[in-house]
């Protein structure tokens, strides 16, 4: 089934205000094209989750799209604390979001459990700390402590998560949504598969035959997928292995802009609201920052070896 559509169509058709979204990426394959489209469409009251969030989540929060955040971490990495995140929690600008705190072990396991159809999963971290003392919108269901029925030891259980929509950016997918990656995975595979429907953004749409040449690379199979968007350079300023590098200079631009509420608004206007799609974004990038900067981001070629599945 051909599920190819534009980012605009995919987001307007499958993401609505109030939804619970898993948005994958780990600097590696951040789905920025989707983030921008969500902001442009003025979608509100989202619950969002990912282990180790970064500039993309900061931007969604600053743009006022987010009501709740199932969180482990949010920072701009090299560029320090998330400015919009801080403004939201410290000053209520544009509004104060609700945060449920987990960790980079517990949250990935909750997504794994969601993907596997488990109701909950035992984890060994978080105990003895304030991560158990603060509870937000998940209330008493944030976790449960039980005595293990096997050995009586205190055991922490955390609930599985099943987001309404999972959004990830991958290297390649076919028209029906079989999605393949290589390189750093973050929590993409289980986050996407835990979701009730998945939107795949990709660098390249390839044929079903190409997918079938190396099916062990597929992390999300077509039956989970509702839309496929071909958006090259769609993870910029994050990177995609084999396609382009992280854009540290742009990261600095974002840090500087988001230092102030006004700066952030201007940044959004320039890079999101006044931009129609990824094609316009790429064009604006080249116009503003120069073709040399764009070209410098393009990945080197260093190819591995093909394998055969034949018998």
């Amino acid at each position, binding site marked *: 089934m051909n599920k190819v559509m534009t980012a605009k169509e995919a987001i307007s058709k499958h993401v609505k205000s109030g939804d619970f979204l898993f948005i994958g990426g780990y600097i590696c394959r951040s789905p920025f094209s989707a983030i921008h489209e969500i902001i442009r469409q003025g979608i509100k009251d989202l619950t969002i989750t990912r282990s180790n969030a970064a500039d993309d989540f900061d931007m969604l929060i600053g743009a006022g799209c987010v009501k709740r955040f199932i969180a482990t971490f949010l920072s701009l990495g*090299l560029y320090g604390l998330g400015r919009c995140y801080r403004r939201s929690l410290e000053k209520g600008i544009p509004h104060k979001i609700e945060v449920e*705190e987990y*960790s980079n*072990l517990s949250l990935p396991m909750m997504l794994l459990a969601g993907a596997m159809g488990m109701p909950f999963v035992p984890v060994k*971290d978080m105990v003895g700390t304030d991560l158990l003392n603060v509870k937000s919108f998940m209330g008493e269901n944030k976790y449960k402590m039980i005595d293990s029925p096997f050995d009586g030891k205190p055991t922490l259980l955390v609930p599985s998560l099943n987001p309404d929509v999972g959004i990830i950016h991958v290297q390649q997918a076919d028209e029906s949504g079989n999605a393949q990656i290589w390189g750093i995975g973050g929590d993409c595979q*289980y986050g996407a598969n835990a979701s009730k429907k998945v939107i795949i953004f990709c660098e390249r749409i390839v044929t079903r035959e190409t997918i079938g040449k190396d099916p062990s690379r597929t992390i999300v199979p077509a039956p989970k997928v509702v839309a496929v968007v071909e958006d090259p350079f769609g993870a910029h300023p994050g990177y995609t292995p084999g396609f382009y590098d992280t854009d540290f200079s742009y990261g600095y631009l974002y840090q500087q802009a988001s230092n102030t509420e006004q700066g952030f608004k201007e940044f959004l206007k320039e890079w999101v609201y006044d931009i129609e799609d990824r094609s316009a974004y790429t064009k604006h990038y080249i116009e503003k920052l120069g073709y040399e900067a764009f070209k410098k981001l393009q990945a080197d070629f260093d190819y591995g070896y093909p394998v055969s599945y034949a018998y």
Partner: protein
Amino acid sequence: MATHANDYIKPELMACCGAREIKDNDLVIVGTGFPAMSANIAKYTHAPNAIMMQESGVIDAQPKRIALSVGDPCLNPGAAMIGGLVEIMGMFLQAGMVDVGFLSGSQVDKYGNINTTVIGDYDHPKSRLPGSGGANPIGSLAKKTLIIALHDKRRLAKKLDFVTTPGYIDGPGAREKWGLPPNTGPQALITNKAVLRFDKDACEAYLASYHPGSSVKEIVDATPWELKVADDVHETQPPTSNELRVLREILDPGRLISIYEKKGYV
């Protein structure tokens, strides 16, 4: 014999202090900055078979530049295995295979508990910090955790505003009571003035060595709790010329480590 260099900056000494805590064949979960440099110094000197991993999913990366994040592009080509968070935090850390984890924090107390969540009241924060990320599970489950901190009465805190990551929690028996694995917990607290180690019985950080240029008194005064001092307290061994060579010529020719001086590590 290793000779000792005199011309080094404090962050370089701290990186070497971290490296010396790593044994050959250790599995080390690293972030960026100090931890990555410490682990690499160890690998190029006394621990050639130590293996590093990043929580994003990478084992035994072969980066050609200093990684600027745990998801940095340079961690991909040449790694021995790449999966995702579940593989590193689950299949290694929770499975009890990680020997060494590095942590840093905005506040650290005498039990090695760490705050990276919030300064001020949680619901009305003065400053909202990133949150746990991988810190809590590393502090919970790595066999040894090494903590990096600035040595002043704000960063070393009598009481944390928020306990993000467990050290020895509220003292002897607490980790056991909560069901954390045996023989885990903070091993050293490496500051810009000293190396503190943790007393097995009291679970409390004590002064093990003072960095060249500092003194026991200065350190005791800069510590907000009544700091115990080891009987054999001594000056921290300066970086050896070999450690410095590795750091400057192989790992960090651009001297990115000097940015830590601007962050107060002097």
